[in-house]
């Protein structure tokens, strides 16, 4: 969790919107300061001698991820037009209003837009999840950009749905996974087809239940289903005693 926060923080500060991309030497020089500043805010204890090993390794990991991200931006000719961008708008697929923060918004030379979420993980599971049509996060970001609400909402309606591409950047293996593409983007891996129909339909059902006053409880087998069918690690079910206390067995759930 902490490492992810630090990586996000450094990527945000190293590649500010509407600025020239720094070269590798500039990045390597700047990393220690960015990491130290981030640690000062999030985990000052990690600056002590006892944590020197963790500190050093974090620095190495952040530098590798940042250099790889810079290489991707260069090879794709991408320009950063927003970081930690607040989005709000409607979600037609869920029929609710949503808001959130997109880690990074990129503009490609052909004016296509990439809405990127940085993940401190490897691409393997993320690809599996997208192939299982179980994405939610970047899909909602894309919907918000196309259906903005509120005065200061980022409005990319003019760009068009086909030209807004949802993407995940997995910092552990330096991959960029894109949802669909009409034309290949250098340095990315594309997952064809729908990436979110399973989760959006499931969530729509839940929302409908809630709107009529029903609170469906999770069943015992949900964790297994989330993991095997949706490729989602069920942290919320596995690690939360309170949630577990309100879980019902499968028979009760169907009744």
């Amino acid at each position, binding site marked *: 969790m902490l490492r992810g926060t630090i990586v996000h923080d450094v990527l945000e500060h190293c590649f500010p919107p509407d600025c020239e991309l720094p070269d590798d030497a500039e990045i390597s020089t700047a990393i220690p300061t960015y990491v130290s500043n981030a640690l000062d805010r999030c985990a000052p204890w990690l600056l002590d001698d*006892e944590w020197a*090993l963790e500190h050093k*390794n974090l620095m*190495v990991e952040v530098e590798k991820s940042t250099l790889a991200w810079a290489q991707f931006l260069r090879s794709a000719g991408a320009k950063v037009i927003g970081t930690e961008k607040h989005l709000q708008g409607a979600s037609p697929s869920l029929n609710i209003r949503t808001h959130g923060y997109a880690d990074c918004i990129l503009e490609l030379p052909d004016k296509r837009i990439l809405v990127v979420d940085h993940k401190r993980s490897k691409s393997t599971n993320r690809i599996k999840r997208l*192939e299982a049509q179980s994405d939610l996060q970047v899909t909602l970001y894309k919907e918000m950009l196309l259906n903005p609400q509120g005065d200061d909402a980022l409005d990319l309606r003019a760009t068009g749905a086909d030209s807004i591409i949802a993407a995940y950047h997995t910092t552990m*293996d*330096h991959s960029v996974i894109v949802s669909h593409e009409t034309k290949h983007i*250098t340095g990315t891996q594309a997952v064809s087809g729908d990436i979110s129909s399973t989760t959006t339909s499931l969530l729509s059902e839940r929302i409908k239940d809630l709107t009529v006053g029903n609170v469906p409880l999770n069943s015992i087998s949900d964790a297994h289903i989330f993991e095997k069918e949706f490729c989602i690690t069920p942290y919320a079910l596995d690690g939360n005693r309170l949630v577990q206390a309100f879980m019902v067995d499968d028979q009760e759930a169907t009744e």
Partner: protein
Amino acid sequence: MNNSLTIVPAGAGSGKTYRIETTLADWLDKDEVRADRILAVTFTEASARDMKSRIRARLLQSGRSDDALALGRAYVGTIHSLGQRLLTEHAFAAGNAPTSRLLEDTERDLLIRSQIGKAPSLQPIAENLSRFGYRFTPQGGTAEDQFRGKILSTIDLLRNLGPRGSDPKLLDDLIDTMKVDYGKTKKQNKLHAALKSAVQNMFKAFPNDVSETVSAKTRRATLRADHQLIRSAAQTDRLQTDWAAWQKLRSLFISNSNSKLPQGYDELAEAIIEAADGLELHPGPLNDAIEHITGLVNGAQEIVAAYDMEKRQRGLIDYADMIARTEEILRETPDTLQAVLGEIDCVVIDEFQDTNPVQFALLWRLAQHAPKALIVGDRKQAIMGFQGADPRLSQALDDQFPDALDPLRCNWRSVPEVMEFVNSVGAGLFGTDYEALTPQAAPGCANSPIQYVNEISILLSICYA
């Protein structure tokens, strides 16, 4: 060398405790040893208490109540309690505070932990843990935890070696051994150039992954991973140091009867596989292993030096100090050795096979100069290898003093049927090193099948330890 050294190899159930007690009683009866001048080292505090109480009972039975009382002043305990007592009694000779406080394990880890970031030799490894094989695992924890664990175990290993642990030549010997074990290598530049060119050819011909050309999910995932590997190998310098990447490139996916890849892909993949097979003769992994061991040994030596200084300044000792410092004092200050020897008539050591080099050095320094010494052990029961115990030390002693050997050849625990079985298995496991024990229990007396299991499991666990 003293005049009465006795080395007693004693197999399981051969009556070694009885032998120690009767020998001590005999010495006491003949007034060759005074009760308060016994130095006996046992494996556990419980066995020390047991030994003391049996000797005391024997003395009381023979009406020697003064001697029974004097036994309380004798050195009878584990090697650590012996070390702690000697360190306290000879604190000034050692340059220690007379009331050194024993460090808790957590305090020790914290002290060492703070030194790790400062040890210059460790930094090349610390900066690239994954290159040296440290990765998160659910069992082992984070890469940092695993590296710290490796440093701590290296420190323990070096400290268990005594003065040899800080010998700069130790590293040269290790590296020489590694080179011999690794075997022949080829020039790395040629091997690297061949693989680099092969992956670049592939990446040029197939800049995007070809996973969409197959339908099976697992094949697609494999091809995607292959492409990612090829891309990074072509675009970055990871092939210079990433041997896991070389290894993965040796098994790229190629067409089979179910999955046909685009034309030209297989030839390029096969060229990569052939070039990556050069890993077997690549000197890179050996050089990394040498860099790793160099960093660990030098780093551990740097940390030990700084950690020792810190402990001295704060008047602290740890468990390893109880042995290492005592051995150092006895080695470096002959007056102290003489003073200790002046207080003892005999040295008795039980479970000798489980001593590590520094423990051996400490005990042998006393045993070889004491008027009488009785050393009991069984190499087949050496179980403390994980703490640096080395049964070869015991073997060397047997070889050096063959006339002092007085093995116990009987077994008092098991019936002949059990012993026949155990002796057969023992001979199979240990060959000529196994000394068959003659059963002394009457045939068919109360022995349950569980005894067979116990005896055999002891032998097997010893053999495979």
